[in-house]
């Protein structure tokens, strides 16, 4: 039976160095040896696919591009088959370049500081425990479908002030935008339209009844001239917060649990030394970074000595940068107590993820609560682990057996 939820296939890749494709099933399944091959070939590789696209393969080349907003624009941030028209206020600030980027970013930062996240932490612990209550007695669980998925959805729904019970709606839009939308523009436009309509309804409700949440916060925000934001800006930022906050952290929590299921020695150490969990979270973020961004080359330049031509996209793989052995000794090993870790999982430069403090808090709480209640678990040999395709990588099916192995 064909699976309609999977994007259409591209021709298979036979020459990774000259014809890479981040939607290829081999990349989705195990990208790490591919990145190693590309890195050995050149700091920057190119493919004719996606109407022309580069990929920096080293940490240094990724840093150069992330810090160069003159030659590399964020007006397009997903590598797709097509180049949909650039929408005004698509999703500020992630789709903004200087000088409009900074005020749009500063608007979103105060609700996401570490102190603001501390206030949300008790609610997150409760959410994690409610989810665990739902399956702990079963002896087995798909941890991606029933645990890691719902933690970030419920967190961002809580912050935005929209019903947590709409979670499956949000998850479907994200699938349409980030996975199906790579190859099907109509899918992308439909999801954007539906999300905008959804948020317009919530904005309308708040006009008569203001609330204490991020939607009201953005509605009441003023720009530098004291004017309210354009509606398209408010909607764009709301779409961004919903999209960016969900399958990213879903993936990060899922990959972390996947690692711990297969690595009893790390699991036992974190149970014995829970104070090590924040350090472990950073290492798991490095080794299994979920998010690959993109830029569009707007002026010819060179990166790590390689010429780069305007009109191409750039696949800005923070995950590949984080596996560069020149930057990280034993880059392909998870060193759960790694002390020096300048990983780029949340990006580098002005587009550093606005939700990084939220994501870190969610990961830490999700692992702490899981390990307290489920110290023993392993992959279910009768099930299959599957990974999402494209822009955000993480387990979408994660079948576990709970309890000690017999």
């Amino acid at each position: 039976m064909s699976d309609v939820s999977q994007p259409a296939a591209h021709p298979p890749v036979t020459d990774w160095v000259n014809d890479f494709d981040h939607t290829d099933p081999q990349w989705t399944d195990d990208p790490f040896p591919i990145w190693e091959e590309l890195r050995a070939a050149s700091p920057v590789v190119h493919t004719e696919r996606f109407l022309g696209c580069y990929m920096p393969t080293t940490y240094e080349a990724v840093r150069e591009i992330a810090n160069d907003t003159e030659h590399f624009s964020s007006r397009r941030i997903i590598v797709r088959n097509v180049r949909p028209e650039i929408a005004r206020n698509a999703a500020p600030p992630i789709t903004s370049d200087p000088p409009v980027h900074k005020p749009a970013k500063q608007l979103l930062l105060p609700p996401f500081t570490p102190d603001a996240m501390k206030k949300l932490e008790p609610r997150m612990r409760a959410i994690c425990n409610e989810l665990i209550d739902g399956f702990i007695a079963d002896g087995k669980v798909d941890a991606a479908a029933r645990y890691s998925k719902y933690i970030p959805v419920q967190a961002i729904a809580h912050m935005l002030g929209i019903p947590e019970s709409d979670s499956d709606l949000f998850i479907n839009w994200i699938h349409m935008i980030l996975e199906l939308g790579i190859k099907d523009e109509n899918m992308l436009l439909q999801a954007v339209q539906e999300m905008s309509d959804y948020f317009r309804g919530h904005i309308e409700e708040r006009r008569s009844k203001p609330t204490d949440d991020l939607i009201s916060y953005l509605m009441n925000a003023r720009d530098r001239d004291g004017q309210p934001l354009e509606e398209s800006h408010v909607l764009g930022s709301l779409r961004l917060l919903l999209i960016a906050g969900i399958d990213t952290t879903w993936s990060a929590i899922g990959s972390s649990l996947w690692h711990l299921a297969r690595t009893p020695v790390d699991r036992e150490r974190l149970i014995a030394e829970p104070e090590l969990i924040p350090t472990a979270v950073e290492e798991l973020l490095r080794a299994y970074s979920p998010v690959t961004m993109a830029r569009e080359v707007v002026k010819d330049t060179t990166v790590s000595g390689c010429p780069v031509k305007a009109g191409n996209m750039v696949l800005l793989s923070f995950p590949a940068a984080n596996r560069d052995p020149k930057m990280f000794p034993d880059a392909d090993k998870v060193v759960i107590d790694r002390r020096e870790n300048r990983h780029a999982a949340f990006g580098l430069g002005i587009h550093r993820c606005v939700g990084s403090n939220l994501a870190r808090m969610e990961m830490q709480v999700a692992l702490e609560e899981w390990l307290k209640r489920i110290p023993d678990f392993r992959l279910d040999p009768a099930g299959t682990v599957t990974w999402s395709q494209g822009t955000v990588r993480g387990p979408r099916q994660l079948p576990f057996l709970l309890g000690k192995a017999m």
Partner: protein
Amino acid sequence: MAERLKVRVDPDKCQGHARCKALAPELFELDEYGNAHAAGDGTVPPGLEDKAWLAKSNCPEIAIDVVEE
């Protein structure tokens, strides 16, 4: 006698990853946007030298300097 250390954050480089605040909360403060600066005049009290170096070596933007005075 050991040299006294001072930490400094380059405000043009800091992007608010907040790793320094997590690793060395005594030595750094965050502003309302979550961007970091040194606590007080940046002087590292005795016993916290390791934390200063740890913060420096975990800053993704290479925004932190530790200087000996």
